[in-house]
C-alpha cells in the first residue's frame, strides 16, 4: 500500500514536469496546427538562462526565474520570425513547419554545445534536498513547489485566454485564423503573443527541469515525452495537455513499478495507441478537419 502511494506521488511529480512542457506545445499547436519541435531547444536554453542568472550574475532566485522566462519568450518569438513566418506568409503545408522546427532544434542544441560546452551543470541548491516525510512516504520539496508554481501559471494562462481581449483573439484565431484576419484581428500579432507565452512557459519548465535534473544540451530530448503526453491528452487543448501529462507520468510509473521497467515505454506506447484508436484525436483534442 505504501509503495503504491509512493509510486503515485512519483508519477504525479513526473507528470507535472511533462505538463509544464506539454502546455507550451499545445498552445502553439492550437493556433498554428503543427508540433513545434523547437520547443525542447527553448526549454533547454531556459535552463541555461536560469543557471547563468544564478551563478554568473548572482541574481536572487526570483530574478533568475524571470530572466529565464523573459529570455525564452524573446527566443521563441525570434524563432517564429526567422523559421516560421516566411512559411506562414507562403501558406506552406504543416510538414514544412515541422522540418523547419527540427532544423531549429538541431541548431539550438549544437550552438550550446559549441559555445557553452557539452558538460553537465548543477544548479546551486535552492530548496533543501531532504524530502518531506509523511510516514514512510517521501515527497520532494522541489516537487511540491513545482507543482504549485505550474498550477498557478496554468491557471493564469487559462484566465488570460478566457478573460482578456488578446485571449479572445487567440481563441478565435485557433478556431479559424483566416476568418479572424478578415474580422480585423492582427493575426500576426496573435501568433507572436502565442509564441511569447509558449516561450515564457518553456523558461519556467527549463528552470525547474534544471533544478531537478541538472542542465545539459540534450534536455530537449525529454520533450519527446511531453509531445507524446500532449497528443495523448489531445493536441491544442490546454486541459488536455495537463491531463495527458499526468496520466502518462502515472501510467509510466505504475508500469515500471508493477509490471516491467524493461518494457515500460513499450506498454506506455501500446496504451497510447489504444487510446488513439478509441479517440483518434486524444482525450480532449479538438476534432479538427484534416489540416494537411
Amino acid at each position, binding site marked *: 500500500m505504501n*509503495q503504491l502511494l*509512493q*509510486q503515485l506521488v*512519483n*508519477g504525479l*511529480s*513526473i507528470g507535472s*514536469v511533462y505538463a509544464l512542457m506539454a502546455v507550451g506545445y499545445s498552445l502553439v499547436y492550437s493556433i498554428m496546427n503543427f508540433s513545434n519541435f523547437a520547443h525542447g531547444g527553448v526549454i533547454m536554453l531556459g535552463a541555461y538562462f536560469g543557471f547563468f542568472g544564478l551563478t554568473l550574475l548572482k541574481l536572487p532566485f526570483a530574478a533568475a526565474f524571470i530572466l529565464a522566462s523573459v529570455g525564452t519568450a524573446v527566443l521563441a518569438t525570434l524563432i517564429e520570425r526567422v523559421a516560421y513566418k516566411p512559411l506562414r506568409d507562403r501558406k506552406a503545408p504543416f510538414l514544412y513547419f515541422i522540418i523547419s522546427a527540427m532544423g531549429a532544434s538541431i541548431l539550438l542544441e*549544437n550552438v550550446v*554545445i559549441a559555445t557553452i*560546452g*557539452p*558538460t*553537465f551543470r*548543477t544548479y546551486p541548491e535552492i530548496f533543501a*534536498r*531532504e*524530502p518531506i*516525510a509523511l510516514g*514512510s512516504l*517521501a515527497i*520532494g520539496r522541489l516537487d511540491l513547489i513545482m507543482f504549485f508554481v505550474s498550477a498557478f501559471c496554468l491557471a493564469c494562462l487559462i484566465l488570460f485566454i478566457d478573460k482578456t481581449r488578446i485571449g479572445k483573439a487567440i481563441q478565435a484565431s485557433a478556431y479559424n485564423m483566416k476568418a479572424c484576419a478578415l474580422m480585423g484581428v492582427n493575426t500576426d500579432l496573435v501568433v507572436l503573443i502565442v509564441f511569447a507565452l509558449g516561450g515564457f512557459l518553456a523558461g519556467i519548465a527549463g528552470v525547474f527541469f534544471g533544478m*531537478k*535534473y*541538472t542542465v*545539459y*544540451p*540534450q534536455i530537449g*530530448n*525529454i520533450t519527446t515525452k511531453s509531445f507524446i503526453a500532449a497528443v495523448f491528452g489531445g493536441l491544442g487543448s490546454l486541459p488536455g495537455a495537463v491531463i495527458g501529462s499526468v496520466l502518462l507520468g502515472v501510467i*509510466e*510509473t*505504475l508500469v*515500471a*513499478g508493477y509490471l516491467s*521497467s*524493461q518494457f*515500460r*515505454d513499450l506498454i506506455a506506447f501500446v496504451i497510447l495507441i489504444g487510446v488513439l484508436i478509441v479517440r483518434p484525436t486524444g482525450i480532449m483534442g479538438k476534432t479538427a478537419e484534416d489540416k494537411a
Partner: protein
Amino acid sequence: MRMRALLCSLLIAAVALVGCAGGQKVDTIKVGWFGALTGDQAVWGENELNTVKMLFEEYNAKGGIEVGGKKYKLEVIGYDNKGDAQEAVNVTKRLTGQDKVVAILGPNASGNAIPIAPILEAAKVPDIATVATNPKVTVMDGKVKPYNFRVCFIDPYQGAVAAGYAFDRLGARKAAILYDVSDDYSQGLREFFKASFTKKGGQIVADESFNAGDVDFRPQLAKIKAANPDVIFMPYFFKEVALSANQARELGITQVLLGGDGWPSEQLISMGGKAVEGCYFVNHLDYADPAVADYKARYKAKYGKDTELNGFLVHDAVLMLVDALKRAGKVDGEAVAKALTTTDIQGITGRIKIGADTHNPEGKDAAILKIVNGQYVFQEKYAAN
C-alpha cells in the same frame, strides 16, 4: 539566391578539405583520433582529444620521436563521430583512405569500435580503443582481430570484480541492479555482474532498467527499495548515477551503491554530493597514485579543468603507440600493428602487457575506489578470481 549561396559555401568547404589532404610533410607522423565531440558523450571525447593534443605537443617540443633512426613530429587528426556507429565507419574510411594516418586512437564506445574492424584490416591501420570494454571489440568468434587493440580491461572482468568485491569484501548477499537497457556498456556489465554474483551464491533481488535519456528513476528505485537489497549495482554513466543516487536517497534508500568505470568524474561529486558518499566503484586506476599526478597537473595547467577518466587511458594509448612506432622502426601501419602485439610497457594506469591472442592488456588489476568526503579514496587493487 540563398540556395546558391549555400551551395557556394559547400563548394568552398569541399575545396578546403581537398586542400587539407594535399599538403603532406615527410617528417610528420599522422595519427587519427575519433570520438564524440558533440552529443551526450562529448565530455569524454573532448577530454581525449585534448590529452592527445597535449601529449603530441610535448613530444614535438622535445624534437619529436625517433623511428628507425629518423626524427618525426607527431600530428593528430581528430574527427567527431557524434558517438554514432555510422559516422564511425565514415571517419575511419576518411582517416585511413584520405588522411593516410598510420594508426588510430579511440573510440571510447564499443558500438563504434566493432564496425570499423573490416576497414582497419583492409587499410592495414591499427586502432587502440580507449574505454571500449566489450570483448567483441578485439576478439570475434574465437579469432583475434589483427588491427584492433585496447588499453582497458573488458566487461566480463569488470563485472566479475564488482560482483566479487560486493560479495567478498562488502559481505552483500542480496543485490539489486538498475541499468540502462538501451546502452551496450550498461547491459554488458549487468549481465556479467549478475552471472558472477549468482555463481558466488548471492541473489539478485531486483533487476530494473531505464531508457537512455531518462531523468527520473524513482519508479524503479521504489521497487528496489521494497526488495530490500544489501547493495545496489548501478552500471552506467555519472550523470544518471548522480540523478539516481539523489533520488534513491530522497526515497529513503540508505544502502551502499556500487558502480563501474562510468562513474568517475568531477561532476559526479558536484551533482551527486552527499548521495554518493560512502559508495564504491570499480576503476582503471587510483587517482592518488603518484604515477598519474604529473599528467593530472599538466592537463589542469593547460586546459584549466580536471581531466576525466578517458584522459588517463588515451594517455596510455599514446604511450603504447609511441612505443610500438619506435620498436617497429618504420612508419607503417602493418609494422606498428605487429609491434603492438608484443607491447609490454609501464603506463600511468598500470603495466600494459598486450596478450597476443586477445589484444587486451592482460593482468591489469582493477582499482576499487570509495567516495569519502567528496574525494575518491583508493581502497585496494582487486583482481577477480
